[in-house]
């Protein structure tokens, strides 16, 4: 089979599988977040943490719960890493340094999973499974909770309440992430991923050298790593490591896992606001951007000029031979556009323009389809902006799903879209302008600039993938990327929840022939345009000096 045909078949199979699963899964998630009943296990958890699962929260209370939970999580994870040497199951690894522990704690709590360490040579079983894997579940569930709260803001009227964070959090973990992860992990084990709690194996190779083969709960962590769009690999090589991602089939399964929740949540949204077509319009915009990026990156990788690339049939440097350009590009686009950050190839080695598209994928604000929950709420905020300008053009005060977009709503949406560009540009500028940080780059010229730009783009957008080449384990990068991750995660959440509260308090405007219809292809197109304009115009100069300068020369 020709590699191009294989690529097309893989993408088609993936799209078909997502299309098939998206409806029942999205409907199921809508039921999870709207059902009045609690499972017995959930009641136990609520009793243990002392929360009333049926108490409705207004937005400030919901936000306080989100922030308090995340702060405690960060502190807990920080201590777990700092005290690793004194806790059991450490495999003899030492305690993590303060700056790296802060960076890692921030990284996993914010669903970023940026890793400035190498998992197999720094983290014991307790840190991996009891610390990082737990955050893989709960940080994803936090994102979904905030998204659901915003959807409730649209769906509810004349009330200030957005549901209960603790209920949403617990349900997200117990009813969605845990069961699907179990299935996903079993499939990965069947495909050949490692799952054990054993000490590393000593192997003597043919040449007589002794190799140290670490194992661990790899498959289970791999499952939630992708399902929760986390991305933190068990091993430093992440999904390029054969123990994590043994073959083409497991590769495709992992791509499916990291896309399935973000692409199904719009259906949940449509169900909850009472019009599945509204969900289709959102998912269509997400899918269009994602598919264009897949095609663009794949084409750029195959077309890479140069003798070595020609001989290999494409840019194979930094890619696994068992995946090839097609599957690697598919994984790379999906992981950068879902805020996952897991990688099965080195993004730094992509062609300059291909790497630029990956970077742009994150700069779009992780909305196509974006992270678990964060993708949906990001896209809905962009929709608010798009509706505002388009709504004016039909001669009415803009409204979305029957809610007026006035000055208060605009203020929050505008603040939301300001956060990540500000973080990315300011931190990158500081890193470039200060004397020492640029020493971390491996390459001179535009590629070295891309390394830094990519790092902050990945951090502020809570993606977590690395461009490679950049030595990020310095005090400067650990601290600033840690800050970028925290601010890039929680500031937008503040604005989203405030927006949800403001929307939920409104009375709905009835739909008439004069209303801008947001469930039609025209609106999907408008959404795509808004996503591209908002991000594209902001980052064009920076991209010009990085990937464009490198790729066009």
């Amino acid at each position, binding site marked *: 089979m020709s590699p191009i045909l294989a690529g097309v078949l893989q993408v088609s199979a993936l799209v078909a599988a997502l299309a098939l699963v998206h409806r029942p899964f999205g409907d199921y998630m809508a039921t999870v977040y709207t059902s009045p009943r609690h499972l017995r296990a959930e009641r136990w958890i609520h009793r243990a943490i002392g929360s009333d699962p049926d108490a409705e929260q207004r937005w400030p209370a919901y936000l306080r719960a989100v922030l308090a939970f995340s702060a405690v999580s960060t502190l807990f994870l920080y201590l777990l890493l700092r005290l690793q040497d004194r806790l059991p199951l450490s495999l003899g690894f030492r305690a993590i340094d303060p700056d790296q522990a802060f960076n890692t704690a921030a990284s996993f709590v914010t669903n970023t999973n940026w890793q400035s360490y190498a998992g197999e040579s720094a983290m014991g079983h307790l840190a991996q499974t009891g610390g990082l894997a737990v955050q893989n579940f709960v940080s994803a569930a936090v994102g979904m909770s905030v998204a659901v709260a915003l959807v409730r803001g649209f769906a509810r009227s004349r009330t200030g309440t957005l549901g209960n964070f603790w209920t949403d959090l617990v349900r997200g973990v117990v009813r969605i992430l845990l069961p699907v992860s179990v299935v996903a992990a079993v499939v990965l084990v069947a495909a050949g991923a490692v799952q054990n709690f054993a000490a590393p194996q000593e192997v003597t190779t043919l040449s007589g050298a002794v190799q140290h083969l670490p194992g661990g709960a790899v498959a289970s962590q791999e499952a939630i790593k992708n399902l929760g769009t986390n991305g933190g690999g068990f091993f430093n090589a992440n999904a390029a490591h054969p123990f994590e991602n043994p073959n083409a089939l497991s590769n495709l399964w992992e791509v499916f896992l990291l896309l399935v929740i973000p692409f199904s949540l719009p259906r949940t949204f449509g169900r909850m606001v009472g019009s599945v077509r509204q969900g289709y319009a959102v998912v269509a915009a997400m899918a269009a951007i994602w598919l264009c990026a897949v095609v663009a990156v794949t084409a750029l990788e195959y077309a890479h000029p140069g003798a070595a690339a020609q001989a290999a049939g494409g840019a194979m440097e930094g890619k696994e031979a068992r995946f090839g350009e097609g599957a690697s590009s598919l994984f790379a686009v999906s992981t950068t556009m879902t805020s996952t950050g897991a990688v099965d190839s080195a993004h730094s080695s992509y062609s300059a323009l291909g790497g630029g598209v990956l970077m742009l994928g994150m700069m779009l604000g992780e909305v196509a389809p974006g992270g678990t929950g964060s993708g949906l709420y990001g896209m809905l905020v962009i929709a608010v902006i798009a509706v*505002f*300008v388009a709504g004016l053009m039909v001669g009415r005060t803009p409204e979305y799903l029957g809610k007026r977009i006035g000055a208060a709503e605009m203020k929050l949406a*505008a603040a939301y879209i*300001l956060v990540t560009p500000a973080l990315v540009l300011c931190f990158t500028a500081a890193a*470039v302008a200060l004397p020492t940080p640029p020493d971390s780059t491996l390459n001179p*010229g535009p590629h070295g600039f891309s390394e830094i730009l990519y790092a902050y783009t990945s951090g502020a957008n809570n993606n977590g993938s690395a461009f490679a080449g950049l030595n990020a384990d310095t005090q400067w990068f650990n601290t600033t990327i840690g800050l970028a991750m925290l601010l890039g995660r929680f500031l937008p959440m503040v604005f989203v929840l405030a927006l949800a509260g403001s929307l939920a308090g409104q009375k709905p405007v009835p739909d008439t022939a004069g209303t801008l219809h947001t469930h039609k292809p025209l609106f999907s197109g408008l959404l795509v345009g808004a996503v591209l304009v908002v991000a594209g115009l902001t980052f064009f100069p920076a991209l*010009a000096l990085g990937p464009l*300068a490198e790729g066009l020369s």
Partner: protein
Amino acid sequence: MSPTSSVPRPEPAPHPAPVPPAPAGPGRRRTAGGLLDPRQLAASLPDAVRKLDPRVMVKSPVMFVVEVGSVLTTALAIADPGWFAWAVAAWLWLTVLFANLAEAVAEGRGKAQADTLRRARTDITARRLTDGGEQRVPGTALRVGDLVVCEAGDVVPGDGDVVEGVASVDESAVTGESAPVIRESGGDRSAVTGGTRVLSDRIVVRITSRPGETFIDRMIALVEGAARQKTPNEVALNILLASLTIVFLLATVTLQPFAVRAGAEQSTVVLVALLVCLIPTTIGALLSAIGIAGMDRLVQRNVLAMSGRAVEAAGDVSTLLLDKTGTITLGNRQAAGFVPVDGVTARELADAAQLSSLADETPEGRSIVVLAKEAHGLRARREGELGHVAFVPFTAQTRMSGVDVTGPGAAVRRVRKGAASAVDAWVAERGGTVPEDARRAVDAIAAEGGTPLLVAVEDGGGARVLGVVHLKDVVKHGMRERFAELRRMGIRTVMITGDNALTAKAVAEEAGVDDFLAEATPEDKMALIKREQAGGRLVAMTGDGTNDAPALAQADVGVAMNSGTSAAKEAGNMVDLDSDPTKLIEIVEIGKQLLITRGALTTFSLANDMAKYFAIIPAMFAAAYPGLDALNIMRLSSPQSAILSAVIFNALVIVALVPLALKGVRYRPAGADAMLRRNLALYGLGGLLVPFAGIKAVDLLVSLVPGIGS
């Protein structure tokens, strides 16, 4: 009602509604004021310069940033002179100036009107009634509750209600309409406006406004824009524009460290030029002009909006409450058909009906004469042609009118028309009977909501009924299409009438309104408005009576008729000086047009950025990274010319769009989807493509200047 009126009215019209002076219909007036007149520009220039004051500029965040940039580049040009720095500085100042000019021109159009109004206000002497008699005081000394007397030739010294007498008043100073109007004590036509002139008779007015707060004072403030506050939507749009400005400010400021790393440090002048080109200056420059021009478009149509908020709300209205009489129908019943009884031809009936109506000067009577002529070619005969004629006028007792014709040989032919019961009795008295088919016709017409008039004759052959004239409310020409248009725009129309449900339903169906409220009391109206608002709909209505005031205040857009009471004018948020209730539809369109203009220019402004990037980025960095010259798809002649061309285009596009901002984008009633598609294609796609051509054209000119081209 004229004494000769022969038409029985089943119920009085809800208001003695004034017939609008201007024919109201779908025809739209368009003011030609959008075209820029050089004299107007010159007159506005001093104002535009005055607006450069940073304390004024700061209200528009986008243009304030441009002004700061202008100061900065000017300082840099002084410190390190060069043609490029000076050229950029000059064009940045022009950009700010063009924005101010747009606003000044928009305001200037109101100023002329304000001056006329001011003339009406100055130096009025009031004749205040005191216990002992009359006292002459300046108009400014009047207090609320004072009684003043005005006689023919006097100028009314302040707003008030007539408490005694009746007079004809020339209100042209306020309305521009020269035909005098009647103002009388009591009823719905008691309000007089300060500054208007009494033409005849004597009235006593109770003053209702404090000096400086009269209607004319408020009008002056409104048309001058002094009372202008940012409307809610304008505030929201300003927030979006401010945040975009911050984004681009960040993108520009952080670009310098990136550039230094690339070995291509940029001069501050170039960075300022990039910033100004990226921030949404087009919409930022024209935003306030659009708002002022929107108010002005209402003023041109003789509507005064008390707040910009009301104009915006008009665009959002989804329910229109329209009074039947005068708005939907012509206000008078008209003959629509002749229904003869068996054995009588329609022509005979028409002839008799016409004969009986010759002296009837009411619109109903005239309409019978006209219909007879149109339908049966019967010429209206003059008295002399008929021999001796005696007209029988209508009285409340007989409820009939007609004519007695004494023909040759002293044979008298009596023709009568009138209410069914009256004519019935008249015929019976003379020994005739009303045939069954006439009764059926009468019932059928009544059931349809029309008014039946029986026509009978007594001559040699005795008294007999000839047939029935069908009178009905005539819906104004074009209203049906107008309502269909509104429906496409998503607006529901509800007809309000004092008629019974049967009549109301018939008229509603004929006019094509969506709903009607029959036998409406002010309380019913109020309840309807509250019901609509509870469903999230915005309601617009017109009214003139004191009993309309609560509903006018409750409605989101309440248009008071200038002919109405001062209570109604206080309660509404707009006043229609022409007192034309049909204008509500135009007001809605102006509101929509205002919002569309804002949205279209915002889209255009943002779409422009793409081309500017393609001009400026290669100009900045092609030296360091030659590959980036591939982005110079316009093939601009030199880096400096490219940057300057982008700046010049950015300034000129403001001037080019001033007429559009003042006139508003073309508005055609259509569904939201069609409208969005059209405006997106025009202003989105156009905004993307136009600057590529524009910047290239400017570059061609700039490169002709010696020493600039490459």
